[in-house]
């Protein structure tokens, strides 16, 4: 933890609300983006981000500085995102029994607009994010933290509270699972249908 963060935290603990505003400004973008990639919905991500920072404010006194502040903040974001996801599950099930399907095609397929390179890229991004949304939440979070956020294995292990070995195996499964979603006709590690994730099984 750097001196600037330490000073900011000390001010917040002394009751300086403006200092907390600075802290939020500093980290909201990274937290929002991570939560958005996990929840796959802008409104939910905004709600969850607010919840993360309110939780941080309540629990800040318990932050001892043993780990990096950002890792501690991410741990709260991780837990908040999971609980948010579980609360929303009945209405927005994407890893449920497979009865609901989410299209891998981009949402906006307007034919009136000539598909230029930028639009194609946007469509590819949307397709990719739709595929990420089909992963189980545990796999999705690891994939987001590693492949999108570029966090180290040790940091992810600390954030998720699991051993580094588990992080590695979940990440590898998530990458292979994502490949299967994006390339449904390809062969994969789940050729034995009994071990295949429900949403990838063909009926």
């Amino acid at each position, binding site marked *: 933890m750097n001196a600037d963060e330490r000073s900011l935290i000390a001010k917040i603990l002394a009751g300086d609300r403006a200092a907390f505003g600075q802290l*939020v400004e500093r980290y909201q973008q990274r937290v929002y983006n991570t939560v958005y990639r996990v929840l796959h919905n802008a409104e939910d991500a905004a709600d969850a981000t607010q919840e993360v920072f309110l939780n941080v404010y309540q629990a800040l006194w*318990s932050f001892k500085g043993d780990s990096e502040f950002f890792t501690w903040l991410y741990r709260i974001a991780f837990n908040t995102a999971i609980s948010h996801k579980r609360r929303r599950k009945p209405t927005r099930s994407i890893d449920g029994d497979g009865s609901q399907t989410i299209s891998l095609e981009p949402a906006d397929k307007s034919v009136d607009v000539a598909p230029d390179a930028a639009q194609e890229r946007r469509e590819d991004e949307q397709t990719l994010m739709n595929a990420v949304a089909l992963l189980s939440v545990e796999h999705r979070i690891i994939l987001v933290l590693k492949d999108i956020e570029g966090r180290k294995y040790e940091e992810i292990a600390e954030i998720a509270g699991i051993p580094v070995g588990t992080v590695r195996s979940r990440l590898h499964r998530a990458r292979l699972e994502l490949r299967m979603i994006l390339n449904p006709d390809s062969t994969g*590690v789940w050729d034995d249908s009994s071990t295949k994730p429900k949403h990838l099984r063909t009926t």
Partner: protein
Amino acid sequence: MLLETEYELLAQAVDGGLSSEQFDLFTTLTTRSPEADAIFRQLLSQHRQLQALPIVPVPTTILPNILAKLPAASPRVRSRRPLAWVSAALAASVVLGIGVGTYFFAPSTSRVKQTTEQARLKPTVVVDAVVLQPDVKPFVLVKPAGTDVAIAKIGPDEQDTLIAKEPESPSPAKPAEPREENIFATGSRIELKPLKSVEVTLPTLLASSEFTTDAGKKRLATELGRDSVSRVDLFSKNPVLLVEQMQAAAKNVGVHLFIESLTAERLKKPTGLTFAFYIENLTAEELAALLAETSKLAHAQSKSEGTLGLAHIITPGTTEQKDVKELVGVEFTSGKLLKSSPAEAKPISSDTLSKVTQALKKSEKSALLLTYLPTTYRVGATKAFEVKQFLDKRGERLPNTTPALIVVR
């Protein structure tokens, strides 16, 4: 058709973090199997696409919404309130206990002299009010029974505790009894007696260039043997190189070194990390010899490298105890030195030789190399295979040895 382990290998290769053995397997696999090669390219492509995802702009409403929903009290005030209550309750208990004790154990002669009027001022107390307001620290008012005059205000701060106030007499006839019988009326405070002596242990700073001289070695051994455990900090411009030199020095003086695997990986390139050697079953003289050997190797390098500067020797405290517990899972407490005792000498029996051989095998001179700082890079004692190996082989602690934590920073 690929095996599950081969799929795993391909997914792992995306990061490029394969060991040399895995890399060989990966190269063979992708060369031999076009399917594997295609899968790897797909995985790599999706990894790059994920990395290239644009940053999503944060809604401008988030910050104002958060600030609007913040609780009125600061996090510190909220967290400390229960503690304040505990201290107020404890203080109230002490005062009540003293009051009751004074009543029962006061001299009986004086009690007989008490008039009915005086009896109203017996040290029987009631807790009159527990004050708790948002901006005021909680406190308790204590009053003698039958009066409205507070004789003590008990709060969480030390200065508020046991401030006894002279109770005003409720009637013109003042009690004639000596004041010292009323514990609340003594008005005395506990005074600290002057300290006879203060002992402060200062860390010892030694220049590494002195380690190789006889006088330097002697001083080093004296300092290291001062307590039953020791911590040495070695300061260097290039900690990774110094660790390598210490590894070589350990080999030269016959200390077997276990290197935690992640630390070994981290030592392959210069990093800003701090490393630590945990050493057992070496006497202070042997530790001094190890440091002298390290110094010799370090100073054999060109001066510009400057791998070993100062050494800083301290008596370990609770921080080191916690660190060693976390890193190695053993107790690292200072105390009396474990000396060999003449009483241990016993007649040689038939199986002595085998026992001694076994003991020597078990108690080999060994050390463990780990990542020390930042703490997030530490591998817990229970997780590291090399720590288990080290603990399995360390055997009993030998007499006159000084377990040491040598930190290279």
